[in-house]
């Protein structure tokens, strides 16, 4: 039976969608069958980030309403085998699906997939409630910024109240140099403040935007700091204990070159 992981943050713009896509790619690269589900009804983006916007025909709301079978709505990824997207509807609203719809759809997906990753919309309203309902695990994303950490704390509280979990944390866009210079909250600070288990740290990386522009996941390239970080998180989800890269410690030039060559070949 597949595992449902809901990816959420409270605050918008911290990287939920990118993280969902990247984690999906990284898990599929490990040979797992993965489906990423966009529950941001009305503000569909996961298809765009994955470069699948031209392949979307049916969507989550069609499936919820029974006007399309689930298998027909799934979009196969272009880059990795074993990865599928269940897109959101663009011209509908969060209220057009219910938490029960999502639980039912995820129960069906569990039979087919090892991992079901749910990209939650920002906020703590209906869309978030929908995304949380089927969760076996919750991955909360924050950047090392005060507003984002505060919102993450609020979301963690709501997840705890809903009796969902385990809750684990992903810190996105950490800049080790700025942390060292005392200009940014470090991973220890964020963990101490939020008091939840750390799942991964994604370093600030120019490649993320470049990849999003092209609709190609950064996780495909372990030669990039962010790509490597996502691959490490995927391995942690599979039960491996992968050490967290310490501040500023990136793979050496030679190591990165080797990975780049492996990626290109």
């Amino acid at each position, binding site marked *: 039976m597949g595992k449902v992981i809901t990816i959420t943050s409270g605050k918008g713009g911290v990287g939920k969608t990118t993280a969902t896509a990247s984690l999906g790619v990284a898990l599929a690269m490990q040979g797992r069958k993965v489906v990423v589900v966009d529950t941001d009804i009305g503000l569909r983006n996961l298809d765009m980030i994955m470069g699948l916007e031209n392949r979307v025909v049916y969507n989550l709301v069609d499936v919820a309403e029974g006007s399309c079978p689930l298998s027909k709505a799934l979009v196969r990824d272009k880059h990795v085998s074993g990865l599928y997207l269940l897109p959101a509807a663009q011209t509908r609203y969060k209220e057009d699906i219910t938490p029960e719809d999502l639980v039912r759809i995820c129960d069906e997906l569990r039979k087919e997939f090892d991992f079901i990753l749910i990209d939650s919309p920002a906020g703590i309203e209906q869309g978030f409630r929908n995304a949380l309902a089927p969760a076996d695990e919750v991955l909360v994303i924050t950047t090392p910024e*005060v507003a984002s*950490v*505060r919102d993450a*704390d*609020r979301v*963690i*509280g709501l997840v*705890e109240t809903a009796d969902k979990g385990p809750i684990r944390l992903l810190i996105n866009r950490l800049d080790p140099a700025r*942390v060292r*210079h*005392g*200009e*940014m*909250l*470090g991973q220890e*600070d964020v963990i*101490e*403040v*939020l*008091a*939840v288990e750390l799942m991964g740290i994604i370093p600030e990386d120019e490649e993320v935007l470049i990849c999003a522009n092209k609709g190609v996941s950064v996780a495909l390239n372990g030669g990039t700091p962010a790509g490597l970080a996502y691959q490490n998180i995927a391995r942690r989800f599979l039960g491996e204990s992968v050490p967290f890269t310490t501040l500023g410690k990136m793979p050496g030039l030679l190591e990165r070159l080797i990975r780049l060559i492996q990626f290109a070949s």
Partner: protein
Amino acid sequence: MRILDRLLGRPRLSSREIAKERLQLVLTYDRTELSPSLLEALKGELIDATSKYVDIDKGEVKVTLAREGRRSRVVADIPLLSSQAGSSG
């Protein structure tokens, strides 16, 4: 700027440290339903209630929120006025 402060002997927190302190404070209140004004009201009632049983130093009463992991607790520090029986010197 920070070098200048250090030269002048002014202790100055980095913006990283300020961010952490501000978060710890705001989250302590966020996690409970208690706002600073409600906490002040609670303090007043605690003073009234405690004074019925024992003499206290009303000016020195402190009621604060403390955090332990993801849990918070109300900590009341209510100093008693030294009575003849309790005073050691």
